[in-house]
């Protein structure tokens, strides 16, 4: 078991290293660089200024040299300096990461709370009207463009019926008690969480339903029924428990869309999360920020894959690690 984990971890590290170079390369393939950005803001900048700045920022070096410099400074624990905001990367990234985790975590929680009962219900009442409606709802969730649902939510719940703020992360005020601050935060979270979770509810419902159907078809359910166990026990103890495995996998894997999925939601809702930051930093070629965010995202996905594999073992004793 330990050997297995170690081997997987090692593989993961190698993949992360290779990917980091790949991402760096991709970023450099984009034309223009941070200095070019300045031209747009200030037409009085001369080309001599541009060359001077480019040399100062080391942008005139070949890619692999820049990558090496970047990677070695990462290795010493220095995450670098955001060219856009002119502050250390940690300073800008830290709070954003936290915000995204709150948003994505809340969305995941909401999605699971809504999706699992719906999925189980649909599976138990297969081919009933309820099943059809739930399915339609789930498919709508999978099929709706994320920015569109965000815009519609703002239109309806912030403009037509002003129940929630139209965007932002929280009210900007100092004199709030912790409780008020918490409630305020919640109010700002409602619409982004709704929009983000609507997209994943569909997926989770579909998976829960399929897994549940699969589990209900198994022999032990029949045995359990034959033993005369009560319905809830059959469904929850036997059916649902076995349906959990694929659900765990898909939940873990959904972390890969944490940054990607949140980009649009965060942009539309002006939510100060890491997705929006990544988008901005790519747009302005802010290498240090984009690369660190890339790395965090990739590492997290790979790690979650590993955890999902390990959890299999916990949920299903038939799987072993040789």
């Amino acid at each position, binding site marked *: 078991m330990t050997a297995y984990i170690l081997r997987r971890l090692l593989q993961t590290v190698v993949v992360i290293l290779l990917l980091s170079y790949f991402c760096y390369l991709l970023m450099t393939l*984009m034309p223009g660089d941070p200095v070019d950005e300045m031209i747009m803001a200030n037409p009085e900048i001369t080309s001599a200024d541009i060359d001077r700045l480019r040399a100062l920022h080391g942008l005139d070096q070949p890619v692999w040299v820049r990558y090496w410099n970047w990677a070695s400074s990462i290795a010493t624990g220095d995450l670098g300096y955001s060219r856009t905001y002119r502050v250390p990367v940690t300073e800008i990234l830290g709070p954003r990461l936290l915000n995204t985790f709150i948003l994505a975590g809340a969305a995941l929680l909401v999605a699971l709370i809504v999706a699992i009962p719906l999925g189980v219900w649909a599976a138990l009442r297969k081919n009933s009207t309820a099943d059809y409606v739930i399915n339609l709802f789930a498919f709508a969730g999978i099929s709706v463009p994320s920015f569109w649902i965000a*815009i519609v939510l703002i239109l309806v719940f912030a403009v037509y019926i002003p129940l929630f703020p139209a965007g932002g992360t929280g009210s900007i005020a100092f004199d709030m008690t912790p409780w008020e601050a918490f409630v305020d935060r919640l109010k700002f979270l409602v619409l982004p969480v709704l929009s983000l979770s609507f997209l994943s509810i569909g997926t989770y419902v579909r998976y829960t339903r399929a897994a549940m159907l699969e589990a209900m078809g198994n022999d032990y359910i029949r045995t359990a029924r034959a033993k005369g166990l009560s319905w809830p026990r059959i469904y929850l103890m036997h059916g649902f428990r076995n349906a959990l495995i694929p659900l765990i996998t898909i939940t873990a894997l959904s972390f890969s869309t944490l940054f990607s999925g949140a980009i649009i939601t965060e942009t539309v809702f002006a939510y100060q999360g890491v997705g929006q930051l990544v988008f901005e930093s790519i747009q302005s070629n802010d290498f240090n920020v984009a690369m660190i965010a890339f790395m965090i995202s990739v590492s997290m996905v790979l790690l979650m894959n590993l955890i999902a594999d390990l959890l299999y073992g916990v949920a299903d004793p038939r799987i072993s690690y040789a």
Partner: protein
Amino acid sequence: MTDAALRQRELEAQPMWRILLDQFLEHRMAVAGFGVIMLFLAIALLAPVISAVTGLDPDRQNVFNRYQSPGSHLDLSTHERELRVQAFLRQADRSALVDFLAARDLLEFTVDEEDLLYELVTDYEPLALAEQLDGLMAAVPDQAREPLRDFRNMVADFRSFHLLGTDELGRDVLIRLIYGTRVSVTVGLLVALVAGLIGLLVGSLAGYYGGRTDAILMRFTDALLSLPILVVLIVVSAIDLGKVFGGTPLAFIVESRHESVIKMILILCLFSWMQAARLVRGSILSIKEQEFVLAARVLGAKDRTIIGAHIVPNVIAPLLVAVTLGIGNAILFEAALSFLGLGIQPPTPSWGNMLNNAQEMVQHAPTLAILPGLLILFTVISFNYVGDGLRDAIDPKSIRR
């Protein structure tokens, strides 16, 4: 279907496709979805016909009639009218008509004969002018009769009806949505097909040969899968294709009118084959060990034969499902990138960029934003239902014998 009929069916040996078709037809939503897709496909294919019949053009603007509400009747812009007169005058010698009309004194002021037709079409309301011209039909000399009729018909066409209103340049929203269907559906279909093919290739190589080939290909696939896809798409779409393809035989892509569409398809293809590859590999791994493949190998069949004759047919079914679902995803990605301003470039309409253009005006002209969004929703949901139906149909466990 009655029990008797069912029993009767069971007695006859059904061909496989027949069973699958029946299974699929039982999934009502999948059939409905299929219908919707066919409808959209027909609309996409017939877009030029629709444009010709209705006289609406996705690029024709009417800048003094921007953001008109659905169901408006509008006159063509002066500029457009003048262009038509210009073309009309260029087509053939119209001096007979001009002489005739000049003698009629239709304007309250005198103009150069050269300018007469231009002044007529801009000074009069199109319908009023057509009426005037009708009145002249009786008095017209023979050599000017034909041109007058042409002129009259042209003028009568100057009024157009906009069922869904007009957009930010006074262009007809309906015809743009129809042309947008073309772009969005084409992108979806092509991307899913190409991605399916790449996935098939990579997955079958990995699954069939196993060992090191498998390890390398699959680690590569996993690595790509672990990348935050939208982020990578944002990066890749900023790369200048002119640099990549300049001087190569592919340079025509950059020159083409639809560069951004082709670029979008290429980018999406590059990053959407991974799921299909995994799926194919998985099914090959399970098939490879089955008796009929072993038997073929023992009998000395070549790799190519085994792959072609035994494995591919068994892989096609799940792949088909993956491709169907992939179409929906590709449409969504196209929309998302266009929404971020990185997708299909104007003036080519796509649902994504129409939405992007409309989003800031969403409070002033909500239909402009709501319609493309709904169309995306309907299309993608239909593809998802069809995929679901296909999956149910080919799933051996759900085949009721």
